[in-house]
């Protein structure tokens, strides 16, 4: 029986395994160094915040794996011997495979800051990071101040986590405005305000120079590059992005760039070895997408696709319309299609913001054809299905704004803003 070995038990690897099982009787083994069972990485923050316990983040009960004959192995892979189709584990044990799927995800970036390896300095990515944070910052008596470095999604989550335990947080963001490499200025500004409203000490346009140590090798303060200011703290969160977790492949002969290089079929340069999820790097980005997509949804889609190929129905990774979502403290964000931080040459924008609630939508469309390109929505839930259809139908921005109610996904009895939005849109048309 063909043996499929998957390294990594995140959403990509587990989706692949589940779909292979639906399609075939192959032997499946998932290897992970992190945890025995699959859990939802995006939910780790809720454990620290006390909303959930670790078991709640596991989408399948332990019996699921046995029932579906998916073998789980908790171990770290040290080396891949592609010639013999063998994996060598850190314990020295070897496992042979017929087909290998690399789905090892990411690891937090470190940029060589002085003091970045001190005690109390950590990322917030893995289960181990969570345990570390629980030890470093159990409450505001042990951790009197924390500094979070890096203004992305993990950064704001870590700031939210710490402040849920009433630990004062200073949030160092390199950019002039929060996440403005991805978000347009208006949304970014709304989030700046919201972060401060949560009593998080947001420092924009601020870089970390170094982390200072106390006599025990524990972080005691950070130094800010621009001002030289020294901020006393006992925990430093490094959240300046992530990169593919592929160090163990360096000498394997598998082609790597920033991630594991794959073609549109998610195949590496070596036959019977595939890579998916955060650690895979397309030779060229698909459509407007980046070559490395470190997003839950794309990991899942690659898994769904690769299972087909492995089970004999060779299928290219051809994702549909872009979508994504996140939650910034209390504000939910969804996006469908593309809304860049800066409009491209042929693009125009329509922006609406509620006068006092923190809600806004931002629509991107083609200036000449008026084709709808994408929407950012903050504080108003929208239907994925409707926007996906509008994008496929290449609807005009006028159609989208006029029919926005169809896409509303807020709970019943919530206030609707479609009329207000339409009025603002028509006003903008008249003034342009």
């Amino acid at each position, binding site marked *: 029986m063909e043996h499929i070995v998957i390294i990594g038990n995140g959403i990509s690897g587990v989706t692949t395994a589940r779909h292979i099982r639906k399609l075939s009787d192959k032997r499946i083994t998932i290897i992970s160094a992190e945890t025995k069972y699959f859990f*939802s990485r*995006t*939910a780790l923050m*809720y454990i620290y915040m006390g909303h*959930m316990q670790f078991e709640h983040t596991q989408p399948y009960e332990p019996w699921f794996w046995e029932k579906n004959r998916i073998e789980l192995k908790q171990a770290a892979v040290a080396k891949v011997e592609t010639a013999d189709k063998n994996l060598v584990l850190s314990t020295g044990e070897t496992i042979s495979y017929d087909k290998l799927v690399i789905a090892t995800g990411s690891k937090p970036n470190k940029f060589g800051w002085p003091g970045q390896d001190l005690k109390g300095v950590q990322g917030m990515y893995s289960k181990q990071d969570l345990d570390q944070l629980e030890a470093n910052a159990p409450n505001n008596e042990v951790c009197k101040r924390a500094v979070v470095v890096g203004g992305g999604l993990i950064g704001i989550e870590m700031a939210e986590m710490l402040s*849920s*335990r009433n630990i004062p947080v200073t949030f160092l963001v390199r950019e002039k405005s929060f996440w403005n490499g991805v978000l347009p200025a208006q949304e970014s500004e709304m989030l700046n305000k919201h972060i401060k409203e949560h009593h998080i000490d947001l420092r924009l346009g601020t870089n970390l120079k170094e982390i200072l140590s106390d006599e025990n090798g524990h972080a005691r303060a950070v130094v800010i590059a621009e001002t030289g200011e020294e901020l006393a703290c006992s925990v430093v969160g490094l959240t300046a992005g992530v990169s593919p977790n592929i160090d163990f492949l360096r000498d394997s002969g598998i082609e790597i760039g920033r991630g594991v290089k794959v073609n549109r079929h998610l195949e590496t340069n070596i036959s019977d070895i595939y890579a998916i999820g955060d650690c895979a790097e397309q030779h060229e980005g698909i459509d407007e997408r980046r070559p490395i997509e470190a997003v839950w949804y794309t990991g899942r889609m690659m898994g769904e696709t690769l299972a087909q190929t492995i089970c004999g129905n060779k299928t290219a990774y051809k994702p549909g319309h872009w*979508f994504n979502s996140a939650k910034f403290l209390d504000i939910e964000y969804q996006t469908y299609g593309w809304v860049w931080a800066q409009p491209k040459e042929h693009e125009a924008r329509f922006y609406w913001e509620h006068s006092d609630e923190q809600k806004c939508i931002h629509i991107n469309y083609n200036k000449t054809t008026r084709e709808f390109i994408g929407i950012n929505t903050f504080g108003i839930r929208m239907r994925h299905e409707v926007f996906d259809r509008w994008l496929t139908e290449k609807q005009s921005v006028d159609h989208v704004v006029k029919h926005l109610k169809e896409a509303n996904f807020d*709970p019943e009895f919530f206030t609707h803003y479609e009329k207000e939005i339409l009025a603002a849109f028509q006003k903008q048309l008249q003034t342009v």
Partner: protein
Amino acid sequence: MSLANPNGISTKQKVATGIGVVGLFILVLALFNVTLPNKGVFLTAALGLISAGIVLYTNALYGGKTKGIKNDGIWFKSISSRGVLGWITGVVLTSFYIVLYFYPHLLGLGKDGAENTGLIGLFDPLSQLLSGRNASQWFVYGALYTVAILAFGYKFINKYKHNRYEQIRTGSVMFFQLAFAFLIPEFMYRMNSGLPYYDLKSIWPLNYYIFDEWSVKGFLSNGNIGLALIIFGILSTFVITPILTYKYGKRWYCSWVCGCGGLAETAGDSFRQLSSKKMSAWKLERWLIHTVLVFSVVMTTAVVYTYLGYDSNDFWLTKGLFIALVIGFLSLVFGVIMFFKRNELGKDAKFGAIGYFVVIAALLIMHFTGGTEEVFYIKGSSLRSAYGFYIGSMFSGVIGTGFYPILGSRSWCRFGCPMAAILGFQQRMFSKFRITTNGGQCISCGNCSTHCEMGIDVRSYAQKGENIVRSSCVGCGVCSAVCPRGVLKLENDSMEGRINPTEVLLGNDVDLMDLVNKK
């Protein structure tokens, strides 16, 4: 910003707790027969202080905070994570229920017309004010129950400042408890003292005593009002309930009207995350709740049967006709379901069929072996008392509410309520209600499942892009509220395409979706 440790509580919260405990302490003093000079004043003080404590605690907890999800630290607090406080609360509540149901004289109920003393005596002034009679243990229970729903309802509304569905729904259960369960029956007594206690919103089979002989006689001996009330009772079960459930799902009752649901949603809210989400718990649930339903149908039929006559000249509804009607009705329901929904039910159709034939056989055996007093060679009234004891008291009260801090807030609704079973069955089969999953947006975080009081593994559907159509869902809306990615929406829409299992989710290659989801 309060700088308290979330593992503990702030000073303001401690003061508020203290105020509430003083109120409770007055009740304890009364319980131990300490003579309180002016009962009216002390009762007002006790209920006022308890309410004030809860209101102040709420203000300290949520006041000055931004609108949003307020679940920080619930798994660190002893009371809401099966810690010592949780267990103590469970034991105290359970003991209270046992005393209430089985030893009311310990609460001070006067025996054989004697004056009330103790806790029940303390409530006499309020009972006199409302209905002009002295309090009973049920009046005390009703009053405390109402205070709990109102005060913790205030807390829930403040917790969900950003969510109008939650606020309106909570307003609704507070209203129905205060008006329908508490005040109106007392006023009805005052206006027409022969009527049995009737909470209009308590519907058979949840209200298992409505068709008891004393109850039916009570209604029928009170002229047109009584007749109208009992007709309303029958219509509630057989006409009003199916229509509303078809349009809105069982939530119209379970989380908007029902008193058991009302308490679970308000006072029980801190315990909702304790319900088990395991597959094994779901299996147990399906066996238990349907067994209770069968028990309640057979029991009610038997009880009515025993007091009906043989001769149609005495009363048009005879034993024979009644049994024929019941069997006819059950057969109609069974036939309709098997005809339209056989395929949808799959394996469960077999269990349904077995259940149906067991009930019919039981009814026939009853008819041909039973007499005026006896059915199944035991007294009809014994069957009724067994139901009242095991289901009405032990299950719904002692376990259902007493075990809030251990099993979660809805264990009665989930495992035992026959009304929920009927509504749920209809919700699953013939209703426009569903929780819609938003395409491919689920990140499997598990907030929805964790906070589902009914123990539904909501995530297992959401992560497949599948709508949630479950008989047990009471439509509280909390899964949708706590979802960080806007994936879940409770709504009423057409029946078609309501159940939509998918393998490959929206957002992936359209050809792949077509290929895989086709089957």
